[in-house]
């Protein structure tokens, strides 16, 4: 992967433009935070990026996109569906194979979910669900992770844990975030959105928390 490029991206929702002529380039290996109020266009921007770079990007959607009736293992295993043949996936749906459990377990342990391996996702707390969705994205081993508020439901130590895990696993990261401090400490570049346009685009080092807070 060389770089992510969006050229004059525009998106509408019910006749309201939610993204107006956004152009940006994200070089490979860069970690980017998208900040801005809700409705500023972060989710839409991530969606566009995901559509364009489906092949290489793993997505952590805002609604998490988990299947509540399946176990944590199964939900995380979904990140591996593309590397296995269909029959193998079916066997794992019916009866998780030792090999795959061993593959999934370390990720859950890293995210503090080791004891929830076979719990149905529907029975988890919001934070646990969020970590399940993160594990599913990380296990894909993609070069790019697109996260929509991936730490919105966890406490601060867990947030550090999650963001650390993401950064360890992946070179290129684009995360929509609302916690300015976290954004500054885990990313190289901050893109601020307001009403569908880019109003801030600076490297992390050149920004202070106050400056960013104005966006909210």
């Amino acid at each position: 992967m060389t770089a992510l490029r969006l050229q004059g991206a525009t998106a509408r929702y019910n006749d309201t433009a939610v993204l107006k002529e956004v152009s940006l380039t994200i070089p490979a290996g860069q970690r980017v935070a998208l900040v801005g109020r809700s409705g500023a266009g972060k989710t839409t921007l991530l969606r566009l990026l995901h559509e364009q770079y489906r092949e290489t990007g793993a997505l952590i959607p805002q609604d998490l996109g988990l299947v509540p009736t399946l176990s944590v293992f199964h939900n995380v295993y979904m990140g591996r569906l593309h590397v296995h043949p269909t029959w193998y996936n079916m066997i794992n749906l019916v009866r998780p194979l030792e090999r795959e459990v061993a593959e999934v377990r370390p990720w859950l342990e890293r995210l503090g979910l080791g004891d929830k391996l076979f719990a149905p996702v529907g029975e988890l707390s919001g934070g646990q669900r969020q970590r399940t969705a993160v594990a599913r994205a990380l296990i894909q081993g993609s070069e790019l992770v697109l996260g929509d508020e991936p730490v919105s439901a966890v406490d601060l130590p867990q947030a550090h844990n999650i963001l650390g895990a993401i950064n360890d696993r992946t070179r290129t990261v684009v995360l929509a975030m609302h916690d300015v401090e976290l954004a500054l400490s885990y990313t190289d570049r901050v893109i601020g959105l307001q009403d569908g346009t880019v109003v801030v685009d600076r490297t992390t080092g050149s920004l202070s928390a106050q400056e960013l807070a104005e966006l909210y």
Partner: protein
Amino acid sequence: MPRSASLRTSLAFVAIGLACLASADLAITTLHPWRELGRFTWGLVTPSFQEGGTLGLALGKTVAFALLGVAAGSVTGMGLALIYHRRLVRVSAAFVRAVHELFWALLFLQFLGLNAITGLLAIALPYAGIFAKVYAEILEEGDRSAEPALPAGTGKISRFFFARIPEVWSHIRTYTVYRVECGLRTSAVLGFVGLPTLGFYLDSAFLQGDYSRVGALLLLFYVLIALIRVWLRPWLVPLYLALAPLLLGGSLQVSMGNVTRFFTQDIVPLGLRDGFSWEALGSWAGDLLTQQALPGVVSTVVLTQIALVATGALALAAFPLICRHFVGRPEKVVTHIALVVGRSTPEYILAYIFLQLWGPSMLPAIVALALHNGAIIAHLIGRYADALQLGPDTPRNPLVRYGYEVVPRVYNQFLAFLFYRWEIIMRESAILGILGIHTLGFYIDSAIQNLRMDHMVALLLITAFLNLGIDAASRIIRAHLRLRTTPTYEP
């Protein structure tokens, strides 16, 4: 205002029902109908379980046909549900649904013969159409948010089974179990056309006036249905499905020669077999339409409309008896059992019983249809009314409370269920003709007895289109009155 529209529609249907009633033959023709009914009731309370082996085998085969047929229908239906957005699939599914299982059985009997496959197809085919529709609706309403998060390159099948099925699995399971119950009823009724299920033995016992054996067969059937959640355990299903073919046994051979002959010769209109001419086709169609199709359609519609109104009346009268706002627990249990019996007994068997007791006219058919369908709707409305919270100022007089508080609040739901069953009542009205009432089934049966497959197939098509017409009318009325039933809450 929606209520007045509902009321106007109801009154119109009642008026049509009454007009039909005036033209219907309702005579009780047996000299001692009540004595026969007494003997029958006595048989029910003194069931004879002699020849238990035969009874067990009949029950076993009934279950085997039902499970295999429903399983095949369910798998096929799921496949079709995935492509249900295609017009061809929707139309085909609607068509196979519109033909009653018993008619399918009669059709397959003609070229597959008395064969386990005939019974299985007769259940699997129409059920596939039903499953396709309902599964498609369930999938439609399911949450699809997991799909975009799956990695690119995930296969279609993996995607479907991981991201979509688990999400709606409980609905699918509930509905499928409900269909197994329907399948048991269908399977039992298939015995009346010669398959080795419950109906076969019921028919024999009835013809011999052996009411104690009839009683035994019916009681076993009720127990089987009442305990369905006990014996239909998920982990037992594979075992059942593995054992079922052994129980059905017999030859599964199908002669392609017979199939080919049926489709290339037998169903060709008689006058056209030696060469096509428009006149021959015209006279063939003219005779068929005026002498069989038209009288058959008229009787079918007359019976349907009367039965529909009777069903509605019965349901409205019976639902308070299972509703906490009107009766206490003990009474509720009694009515509940009565309603379970009413809805577990297939209309066909009810009609058959009343026909034996009262002689052939529309009366036994109306009573049978109203009892079965009325019991189902009363049950659903009773449950619905139970959920209503009545205020502290609710009238103390139960009649006033019924008329002014409860009925107005359940009425639209009631109409939704009733119109939903309209098409089902029509399907059944047609099939009851086999028992001798002159609806379409009578002419179809006659065509079969006269070995006129050309007539049979033409009449079957007419029956199917009549059903599709009623289905469309029902949908228009429900849409007009803004009535709604959800797929899993279907009566």
